[in-house]
């Protein structure tokens, strides 16, 4: 990992709807979640054999995928933050 285990900044969390449906304070998801990576992941999950346009199910899947991606981002952020705090406590 670059730089080893650093400390987490307070800006590490993304705002977005968690699975519980609450909104969190902090920078908006656009600031942190790269649309480029989201596109890559959601295309792979949602689009099968590419047709002449995105059908309804694919569009719905993509919309859900974006939300889940941001949820996952929050989960991963929290897990990383916890681990950093634990490591710092052990030093």
């Amino acid at each position, binding site marked *: *990992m*670059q*730089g080893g*285990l*650093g*400390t*987490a*900044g*307070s*800006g*590490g969390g993304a705002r977005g709807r968690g*699975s519980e449906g609450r909104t969190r304070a902090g920078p908006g998801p656009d600031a*942190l979640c*790269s649309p480029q*990576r989201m596109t890559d*992941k*959601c295309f792979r*999950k*949602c689009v099968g054999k590419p047709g002449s346009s995105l059908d309804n199910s694919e569009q719905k*899947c993509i919309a*859900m*995928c974006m*939300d*889940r*991606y941001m*949820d*996952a*981002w929050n*989960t*991963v*952020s*929290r*897990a*990383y*933050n916890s*681990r950093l705090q634990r490591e710092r406590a052990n030093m």
Partner: protein
Amino acid sequence: MAEPGGPDPAVSELQRLVAAEQQRAQFTAQVHNFMDVCWDKCVDKPGSKLDSRTEGCLASCVERFIDTTLSITNRFAQIVQKGGH
């Protein structure tokens, strides 16, 4: 106001802010890396919410990835030491 012979507090404050911002950027970059690996491992078809199994998988994925990094780093250091290269 800077005290004669001492560090300028404005400079120190700026350094502190820069360091904090760098840490934030590092954290975000690391989360991007985790997401790259863990999304594929843990999420099948995106649903209307993340179920608890998926959330658990994502959290475990982060932990195990860090454990793996530490294992490899330590073992690699040993190899390098023994090899003397």
